[in-house]
């Protein structure tokens, strides 16, 4: 294990050619290398060998589903999962001495990487008004401070409770219960920033908020679209499923502005052929689309399918299905026939021939799945884009059958489960009625604040109290400077966290850090050792059992923290909520959940079976719980993001050595970038056209219709094979460029993949410090 770094990482940028394949031996080496830098070989073995196994630790990384019990590898994890879990299991510790020697102001100048690498938090600390230091505080006093602040608010709606996708089902359920018992629906979550657009579009068209496919469906699809996602870095285990699909005969079409390594070829490190062979070609066809051109692409494909039906009546579309299960076909068809090819080609940057070849692939396929991620959801027109992908699936009956369906790929292990548990500012009345019946209080019915609206409310002084259940809100949120100003305006900010991050340094007048157990750690309560549950991207709910000795005896579980906070705040005054019993035995929480959350009846018994519970999806039973009771075709107005002459469309993205807002190193191996994250990837022809040079320093300047200048300083230009007119740079460094008001229609999700920027030559580099 290496010691925590004292100095900021300071390496020189080197650039090499992007890789053309993902995983293989280097993935194994890098996973072990990072793990052993963080902790001992014994702890590394304990985490990795139980990770994603039945009865083991669920990977706190992405939400990709595990293979069925009996089909899992002994090493059922990916490089990034291994890095992530040992980042949590690190042997480094942040002690009270650390906070005595570092002011909050100084920590606020540190990079995300440096803060993360200091290690695990060990005891609660508080920053008092006027002080620039965190100092130790007892748990009792911390809860008293929080409860006092909450009780002093003029209205419960002056408080906001944020949830990250790391939180377990049980913790998420308790957080929403506490917030609603207090009297507010202000429950923003990280879903607001990642797949909110998917939820809105799928709910409107199919009546489900979730994807409709299982791993078995992927294995038996004839054709899989992988759209706007980078599985090699963000969901590496998806590559195993795609590889299996390929071996079963599937073809894969990848659609992305960047030719990501994982989209092209995969060397499965679990298989001999992946270690010594050429691996498996993933994409049979790669469509290098412009940022935000996906709506146009699917409108083009849909138009071609309608024309194919015109040429061969009765042989292209799923007429029986369209007649029996859908509504709105005529309006959709009439509209999509009007979308012009000039627009489609301009928006996509593709040729008509390329799109016609896709049509031919579709016509040869009986079973089609569309997978997508944030390359789709983080655009102004994300909801219409996903609706158009649903149109595409419906045209040939590609929902509700084996090997077909919609597959939004979620990036954080329990982001889907948290929403199932009621973390949403707009929960429907039937859920709130069930809460009322179970606990005997009347939950508030007025909708609360999502993430973007919470920032607005904090900024305007309407919200004074911010509590985060995990996460790194200020770095995940858009418009960094405005978000930070909003947070600093709060009377009290508090974070339930495992490690230090920038959100702890951008704090309210009073600030608390409440250190908690990680998912890797044993959780022993009054009634004995506990486990928690999570829901993956394919709606499977299963257990996660911590194995390691806690990082500090003063850590409390998320559930303990919430139960004690609730008791301090609510006393016996609200409803009949057994906070003591909840804390002592998480099974009691699951019993309540089983009576409130649909699909989780008999929760405690069923979830402990190997593989857990498969939540029902009504679409696969021919039922559509939307307003029209049918699968809905929609007519979506053509829309594309446009950048004026001399500007580019920027997408923010993760590097390979990064987990959400936390970079582990300054490297991005697959893209050939090493030593610096302050780079902007630009098509070589755009580099020339803009009069720039490779390696030149530039400032990225956002263009938006307000008077605020948004500038990210000191980025190096890297010529890169991205689509023409587009650029890419890492977040959270570039979140400063995403205007708070630039959101997706309907879903209110920030448009982090469609930011108009200009690149201004800069004279000198700036230090790589977060938020600077």
């Amino acid at each position: 294990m290496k010691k925590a770094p004292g100095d900021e990482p300071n390496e020189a940028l080197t650039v090499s050619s992007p890789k053309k394949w993902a995983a293989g031996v280097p993935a194994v080496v890098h996973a072990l290398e990072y793990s052993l830098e963080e902790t001992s070989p014994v702890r590394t073995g304990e985490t990795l060998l139980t990770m994603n196994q039945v009865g083991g630790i669920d990977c706190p990384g992405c939400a990709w589903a595990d293979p069925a019990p009996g089909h899992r590898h002994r090493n059922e994890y990916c490089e990034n999962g291994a890095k992530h879990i040992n980042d949590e299991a690190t042997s480094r510790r942040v002690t009270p001495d650390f906070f005595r020697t570092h002011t909050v102001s100084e920590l606020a100048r540190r990079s995300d990487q440096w803060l993360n690498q200091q290690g695990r938090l060990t005891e609660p600390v508080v920053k008092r008004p006027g002080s620039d230091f965190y100092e130790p505080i007892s748990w009792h006093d911390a809860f008293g401070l929080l409860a006092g602040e909450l009780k002093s608010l003029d209205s419960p709606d002056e408080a906001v409770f944020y949830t990250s996708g790391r939180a377990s089902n049980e913790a998420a359920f308790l957080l929403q219960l506490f917030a609603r018992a207090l009297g507010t629906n202000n429950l923003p979550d990280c879903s607001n920033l990642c797949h909110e657009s998917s939820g809105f579009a799928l709910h409107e068209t199919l009546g489900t908020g979730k994807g409709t496919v299982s791993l078995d469906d992927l294995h038996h699809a004839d054709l899989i679209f992988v759209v706007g996602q980078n599985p090699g870095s963000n969901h590496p285990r998806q590559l195993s499923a795609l590889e299996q699909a390929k071996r079963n005969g599937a073809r894969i079409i990848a659609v992305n502005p960047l030719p990501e390594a994982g989209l092209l070829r995969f060397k499965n490190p679990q298989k001999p052929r992946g270690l010594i062979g050429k691996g498996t070609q993933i994409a049979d066809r790669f469509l290098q689309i412009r940022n935000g051109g996906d709506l146009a692409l699917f409108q083009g494909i849909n138009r071609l399918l309608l024309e194919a039906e015109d040429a061969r009546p009765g042989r292209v579309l799923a007429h029986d299905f369209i007649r029996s299960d859908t509504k709105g076909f005529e309006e959709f068809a009439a509209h999509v026939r009007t979308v012009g090819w000039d627009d489609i080609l301009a928006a996509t940057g593709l040729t008509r021939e390329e799109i016609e070849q896709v049509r031919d692939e579709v016509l040869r396929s009986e079973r089609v799945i569309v997978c997508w991620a944030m390359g789709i959801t983080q655009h102004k027109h994300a909801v219409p884009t996903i609706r158009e992908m649903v149109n595409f699936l419906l045209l040939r009956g590609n929902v509700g059958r084996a090997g077909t369906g919609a597959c939004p790929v979620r990036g954080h292990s329990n982001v889907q489960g948290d929403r199932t548990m009621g973390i949403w500012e707009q929960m429907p009345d039937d859920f709130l009625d069930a809460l009322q019946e179970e606990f005997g209080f009347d939950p508030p019915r007025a909708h609360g604040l999502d993430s973007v609206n919470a920032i607005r409310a904090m900024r305007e002084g309407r919200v004074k109290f911010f509590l985060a259940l995990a996460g790194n809100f200020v770095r995940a949120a858009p418009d960094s400077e405005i978000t930070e100003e909003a947070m600093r305006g709060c009377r009290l900010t508090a974070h339930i966290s495992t490690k230090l991050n920038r959100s702890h340094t951008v704090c309210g007048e009073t600030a608390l850090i409440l250190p908690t157990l990680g998912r890797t750690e044993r959780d022993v309560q009054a009634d004995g050792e506990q486990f928690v549950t999570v829901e993956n991207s394919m709606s499977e709910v299963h257990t996660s059992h911590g194995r390691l000795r806690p990082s500090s005896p003063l850590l409390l579980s998320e559930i303990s923290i919430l139960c004690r906070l609730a008791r301090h705040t609510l006393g016996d005054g609200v409803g009949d909520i057994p906070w003591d019993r909840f804390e002592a035995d998480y099974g009691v929480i699951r019993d309540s959940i089983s009576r409130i959350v649909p699909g989780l009846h008999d929760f405690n018994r069923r979830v402990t079976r190997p593989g857990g519970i498969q939540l029902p999806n009504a679409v696969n039973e021919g039922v559509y719980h939307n307003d029209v009771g049918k699968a809905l075709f929609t007519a979506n107005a053509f829309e594309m993001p446009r950048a004026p002459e001399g500007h580019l469309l920027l997408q923010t993205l993760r590097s390979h050595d990064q987990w959400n807002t936390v970079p582990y190193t300054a490297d991005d191996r697959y893209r050939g970038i090493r030593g610096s994250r302050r780079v902007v990837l630009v098509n070589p022809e755009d580099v020339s056209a803009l009069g720039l040079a490779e390696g030149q320093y530039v400032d990225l300047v956002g263009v938006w219709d307000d008077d605020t200048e948004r500038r990210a300083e000191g980025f190096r230009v890297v010529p890169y094979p991205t689509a023409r007119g587009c650029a890419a740079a890492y977040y959270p460094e570039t979140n400063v460029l995403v205007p708070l008001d630039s959101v997706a229609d309907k879903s209110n999700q920030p448009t982090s993949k469609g930011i108009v920027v200009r690149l201004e030559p800069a004279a000198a580099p700036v230090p790589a410090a977060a938020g600077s």
Partner: protein
Amino acid sequence: MYTVEETIEVAVPVRTAYNQWTQFKGFPGFMTVVKKVVQVRPALLTWTLGFGPVHREFQIEIVEQEPDSHLTWQGLGRRPVHRGEVSFRPGTAGGTAVTVRIEIGSRGATGVFGGLPRLAGRVVRTELTHFKEYVEGLGAESGAWRGVIRDGRVRPREPKPDRSRAAHWPVG
């Protein structure tokens, strides 16, 4: 590709025989070659067959299912397909004639005995006999799935399932 077809008369009503047949997950309890059945969804199942030391797992899609009448299925996957049908017709004295018809490719349904038509026929006949003994011994079905499947798609029941069976709100 060859076809195996076997019929057996069971001394229970059609509804009872059909209902019991829908309880796939219980098949390993009374059949000998069927080692495990996982019902991923009503129309998607994983079967494990074992014959001696050889085991073979495969997935099937139920293509059509009509209560008290028949169900048809087809194998999923790249290898040569197999497809089959089981039908239920009124038999003599209130009993039911259960007919299983399977078309098997060269490496077919199981890979265990797919290339051996006579062996395949004997296995089907034996397992049907096990089904007869089991359902007659029970005298009544132990469970039932009365849904309808058309073209691989589960048809909604009337009245439609309560919307509270699944969380229906958007998931971000």
